[in-house]
């Protein structure tokens, strides 16, 4: 919300860049204290960034993180904390993987198969989030508590279902189990990037589409307006005719549906099966990315890219003899400091705006007027 002016752009960038700089500083100190050269580390990261392979892998990770961030941000926009994105995407990925790999799907046209898989994932994600939404709307249960518990339940449900007796099969030659692999017709082809052995996820475009949809709904539709209004002041939203219960239900379902998409780029573009080693914890990365990107469609994209790059450069750090854990420290410091930085910037912005109004009206306001 707000005007687009050089100042607002600058202020918008000040907090994340400041947090990033602060995190770099903290990491440099930690590296220095533990006897590693900060410069070598930067060097290793820079040379990693120049490798097309790191670039592609970063973009692939970012695709996944971005979807998770959007799922979280939908809730954040109305002060609803969907901590359950993690459980939602794992359950969705697992069940849709089982569906996509099922033999009866093999006769279907490729496009329909992919669409069915994606829709199934969204439905499962929405359904799992819907449990928390229903509990909140009918019984007043905090969504924070219920989604955390649903994450745990999802973990057990997935490991129960991921069993050769049920939806999974043994992987010959390893002790891994996974759903029946999706054959070529159910996969989404990746994009070849010159100089890189890995492919770019085809579903990177799905993430872009979701980002666009997120922006459009929030900025241009009545529903989006009501969602933001509810987040800014629930009591004012109620007085304006918004049914908060309905908003909680719908936004939670939407958040869950997007969470359902989180596993899709990986499932349909690279692993083709949900197995024990499917990446966990992405829901929590989504929270960090949404915080860093301030729930803004472009901001979250940049944040997701940064996160993806940091993750993928950690391999090169190992090679350079720098402990890769420094990346985790850096990510943690970024999240902590960006929260502080955003609050500082917000306060500054409010004061600056009041000053502007005062100047524009030819006199300064009294403090009581400003706070009245």
């Amino acid at each position, binding site marked *: *919300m*707000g*005007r687009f002016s050089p100042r607002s752009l600058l202020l918008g960038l000040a907090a994340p860049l400041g947090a990033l700089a602060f995190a770099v500083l903290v990491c440099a100190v930690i590296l220095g204290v533990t006897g590693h050269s900060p410069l070598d580390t930067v060097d290793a990261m820079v040379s990693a960034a120049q490798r097309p392979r790191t670039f592609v892998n970063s973009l692939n990770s970012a695709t996944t993180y971005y979807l998770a961030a959007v799922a979280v941000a939908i809730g954040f926009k109305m002060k609803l904390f969907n901590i359950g994105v993690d459980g939602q995407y794992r359950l969705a990925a697992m069940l849709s993987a089982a569906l996509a790999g099922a033999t009866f799907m093999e006769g279907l046209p490729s496009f329909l198969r992919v669409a069915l898989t994606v829709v199934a994932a969204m439905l499962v994600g929405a359904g799992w989030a819907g449990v928390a939404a229903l509990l909140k709307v009918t019984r007043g249960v905090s969504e924070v508590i219920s989604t955390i518990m649903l994450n745990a339940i999802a973990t057990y449900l997935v490991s129960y279902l991921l069993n050769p007796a049920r939806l999974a099969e043994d992987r010959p030659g390893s002790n891994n189990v996974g759903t029946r692999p999706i054959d070529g017709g159910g996969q989404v082809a990746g994009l070849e990037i010159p100089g890189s052995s890995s492919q770019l996820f085809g579903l990177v475009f799905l993430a872009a589409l979701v980002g666009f949809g997120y922006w459009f709904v929030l900025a*241009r*539709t*009545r*529903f*989006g*307006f*009501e969602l*933001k*209004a509810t987040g*800014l*002041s629930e*009591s*004012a*939203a*109620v*007085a*304006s*005719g*918004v*049914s908060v219960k309905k908003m909680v239900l719908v936004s939670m379902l939407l958040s869950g549906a997007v969470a359902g998409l989180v596993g899709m780029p990986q499932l349909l573009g690279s692993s083709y099966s949900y197995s024990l080693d499917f990446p966990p914890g992405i829901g929590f990365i989504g929270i960090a990315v949404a915080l860093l990107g301030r729930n803004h469609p472009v901001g979250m994209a940049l944040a997701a890219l940064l996160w993806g790059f940091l993750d993928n450069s950690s391999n090169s750090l190992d090679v350079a003899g720098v402990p890769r854990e420094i990346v985790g420290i850096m990510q943690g410091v970024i999240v902590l400091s960006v929260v502080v930085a955003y609050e500082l910037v917000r306060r500054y912005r*409010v*004061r*600056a*705006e*009041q*000053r*502007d*109004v*005062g*100047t*524009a*009206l030819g*006199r*300064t*306001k*009294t*403090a*009581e*007027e*400003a706070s*009245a």
Partner: protein
Amino acid sequence: MPTEPAAGGEPAPAVELSGITKRFPGVTANSDVNITVRAGTVHALVGENGAGKSTLMKILYGMQQPDEGQIRIGGVPTAFGSPADAIKAGIGMVHQHFMLADNLTVLENVVLGSEPRAGVRLDFRAARERIREISAAYSLNVDPDRVVDDLGVGERQRVEILKVLYRGARTLILDEPTAVLVPQEVDELFGNLRELKAEGLTIVFISHKLDEVLSVADDITVMRRGTTVASVSPREVTSRQLAELMVGSALPVPELRDSTVTDRPVLTVTGLTVTGADGRTVLDGLSFTIHAGEVLGIAGVEGNGQAELVEALMGIRTPTAGTVRLGGENITRASTRHRREAGIGYVPEDRHRQGVLLEATLWENRVLGHQTRRPSSRGALLDLKGAKADTERIVRDYDVRTPGIGVHASALSGGNQQKLIVGREMSADPVLLIASHPTRGVDVGAQAAIWEHIRRARAEHLAVLLISADLDELIGMSDTLAVILRGRLVADYDPSTVTPEQLGSAMTGAGRED
């Protein structure tokens, strides 16, 4: 002018503020404020909302530190770092909003924070004695063992005063003490103040109710736009002159011209009953009708069911019994959205809670409550262009002082936020306006403008439910007046003949004259 506590002559002023200036970023709250409060007097500080009275008192009470200027207490230059310092110097503050724990007794509330100890034990007995002594000495009539929850508003205020005296205050600051009282309670309070004065205490009394100030104060200081503009004696000024000093110009008067009341009922409420969350009946069988072109004023002490009535009419609260009809339609169970679309405008009592989104732009606030209607939206999509153009119109027609419609509502003063709300609720041709305290906290100019807009809409057959704590506004702006007491409508009055005192009696249920 050096003040020396000379023996025999005038004693040093209890409080002397000279050249006080306080700036906040972008805002000067006080500039060059000078006040001399003689010991043993009631000194009134008057000024409009936003004139800087509260900031000044926060400085005197140590909650804020001045950028410039000096504070002298009893002739001695002093600097307060915190309220604790002020209390030590014998200054006590009675806040406008009571700071009492409802579920504790008077005794426990009074000692809270300065608990009397005997060794490690709390010594309630000594404390109880002291409270009785203080209560008797100043005729405060406070029983230390009653639970605050059972006390009325006037009694709670006396507990607040006692709390301050208990901590040894010799100078009391009372911030708008009468805002929450009905006329009879005001008289009692003034009796207490005279008692305190007779015992040699000094009182600084903040108010914008001029008749009260004239009746109780020994000296009056007028503030306007952050500075002191005059020091007068109540014997030398009329309340009208005082008001014009406060405003710096002539005053508007709330009054309706010719009656525009028609016989077409717009809002018909029958037997409306609302039960609170605790099972208590907060509205008890209310019935009334508002016709097109009629303003129905509801008078009552805050907390007698006004808020519940408004919320029941807006569909925010579900009634347990009764019906609400708008025109011919039964809307008892209709959603808030449906009611708004059917033409109910709503100016809420607490604009920050229900009226505006502080962290949203003015045009987004224009959309709020109108998001399903033109010009704010078309179908499921927002009409940004239409909404912005209409916001420009409201800013122009309602004189909202703002550099543009893209600023956040939080950047505007309360009065300008209120004008935006009134402008918004008056757009889209409402048939009924529910206005709770529509001019609370706005300056005189904005007040006159809001009254004029209501009058004009009334002439075009708008029905208005007006709830206000300002009895002059109620009497001046209403075609019909009703009094609400403990969730019931207890009396009807003709606004052309009723006096504020009669209303006050009916509001407390004290002297019912029927």
